[in-house]
């Protein structure tokens, strides 16, 4: 038992001696990211940063925001869960619902009253940075 104990003690000391310079180098590497990665972010506005982080999802959410009023309910038809959670966060107090059982990505129905009684008014198609986003606006 004593032999196992002394071996394990040596292993622990050895691992800690590797661990210290490893984390020291990790810290240096992290700090170097300020120049290598973060310089590209520093100059951006918050909106640009959000577009960079969430890409076309954020542009789609902006489109929904512009096309709807605060009392509207929005049904997002998309396989992408992230777009639903982002829309729910960014567009609150607008109510967001999610239909994930579809094949399309980024298609929203904007319902001002009740979807079953509504009549389709117009289809909104927005082309941003080469990508097409679609939403159907109900009266």
């Amino acid at each position: 038992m004593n032999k196992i104990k002394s071996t394990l003690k040596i292993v622990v000391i050895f691992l800690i001696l590797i661990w210290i310079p490893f984390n020291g180098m990790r810290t240096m590497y992290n700090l170097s990211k300020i120049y290598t990665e973060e310089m590209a972010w520093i100059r951006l506005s918050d909106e640009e940063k959000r577009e960079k982080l969430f890409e076309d999802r954020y542009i789609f959410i902006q489109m929904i925001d512009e096309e709807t009023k605060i009392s509207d309910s929005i049904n997002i038809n998309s396989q992408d869960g992230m777009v639903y959670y982002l829309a729910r966060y960014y567009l609150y107090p607008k109510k967001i619902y999610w239909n994930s059982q579809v094949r399309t990505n980024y298609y929203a129905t904007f319902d001002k009253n009740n979807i079953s009684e509504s009549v389709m008014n117009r289809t909104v198609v927005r082309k941003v940075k080469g990508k097409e986003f679609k939403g159907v606006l109900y009266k």
Partner: protein
Amino acid sequence: MSLLLSFVSIVIFTAIGLSVITVLKALKKSSIIEKLSLAFGVGVGVVGIQMLIFQLLNIQWDVRVLLFPWILITFFLLVKNHQNVTLPYKTKNDLLTDKISLLIFISILLLIAFTTFEALMRPLSSWDGFATWLLKAKVFYVSDTINSEIIRYTESDYPLTLGLAITFMYKVIGSLNDKAVLLLYPTFYAALGGMFYVNCRKLTSRKVALLATFLLLSTQNLIRHGGRYEAGLADLPLSFYFFTLVSLGLTQLRKQDRASLILITLFAIITFTIKNEGIPFVIIYSIATLFFTTRKRNHVLSTLLIGAAILSWESVKRVYQFPHNIFLSTNIETYKLPHIFSALLNELINVQNWSGLWIVFMITTILCLISKKSYQTIFIYIVIYAQLCVYVIIFLVAGSNVVEHVKIFDRLLIHLAPIALLAMLLTLKDLKIINKFDNKSTEQYIQLSKKPH
């Protein structure tokens, strides 16, 4: 301006926490680092709980109304103690005199600065941040209320304290700025570092304590949750509360003190209102302290209070019709066990996230089992492994896809990482390994810290 006001709200949390600690007459002989770190955690917790109580009592969430009781308490304390207002003292031997300690100290400061910079560099980007934690804060701020409709809409059964504390920050800022409030996270990171250093210092020399703190804070997963991309979750705050609770418990086991026990009870209550995982942790902690303490009566009272608080919280959840809690499920699916253990093992040896933390911890566990150990070491290992068992059970009963669900082990291990590192130090101390690197013994430090210079 928003950032400045966010900083002001952090100062308010700390000031409120300090007034609570002073009222409780706890931590009288603690260092300034310990007092400030702990006060910040207490402040965040009591403000969150205060906002929930105000909501239940139909009192408006106005910053002035919210601050009024705390201003009153601070004024009362200033009048009462105007003649013996003293700053927390520091011992002469804690001054940074040698170059290695200074270098490690500067590295720690750089890590805190880096994490703060990263947190404030980007708007909220963590998935659960916008899906749960900051969504709640935003919803409460915009609606200026809590009701069952809002809770249902957020689709989350998690407690409200952290979300409400962020709502308070929005109130102080005066607008929704989800970048400025992320300052809360590097503050938790720094406070965790502060608490960790102080507790290591009670065991070992300054140099070793600084080195251990550096090893903890330079862990990549902690840096990520402190500010780099994952700020906005509740795991780092929970890690702070878990560690502080255990460290207060360890001190309490050594010297029984009623004032500290009240503070521990308050801390335990805050801990389980941060995240659901806090409830089993607080139960495990209470049982373990009851087992190890010599003054059972006081601890039984404290445990009863914590139990009453948990029941009250469960009643609040019923009032607001919280969604179903997976802890209440009884359907255990044992076929998930191989997936769970393989994911856990993969995460424990994930050097990218943890460096050597969990690998060394696993070896020190074996060393602890085959060596003579102190009751404090046994206490801390029991708490860690019991909580790990809870996580395994959660995966077994949760009705989700286990392959996807176990991916969150990296977050769950954050809760226990600082405690595991402290356990490692305790084992190394029991084995007299770290004593070889010490300039002086712990007993000397404890004696010195009792006498203010």
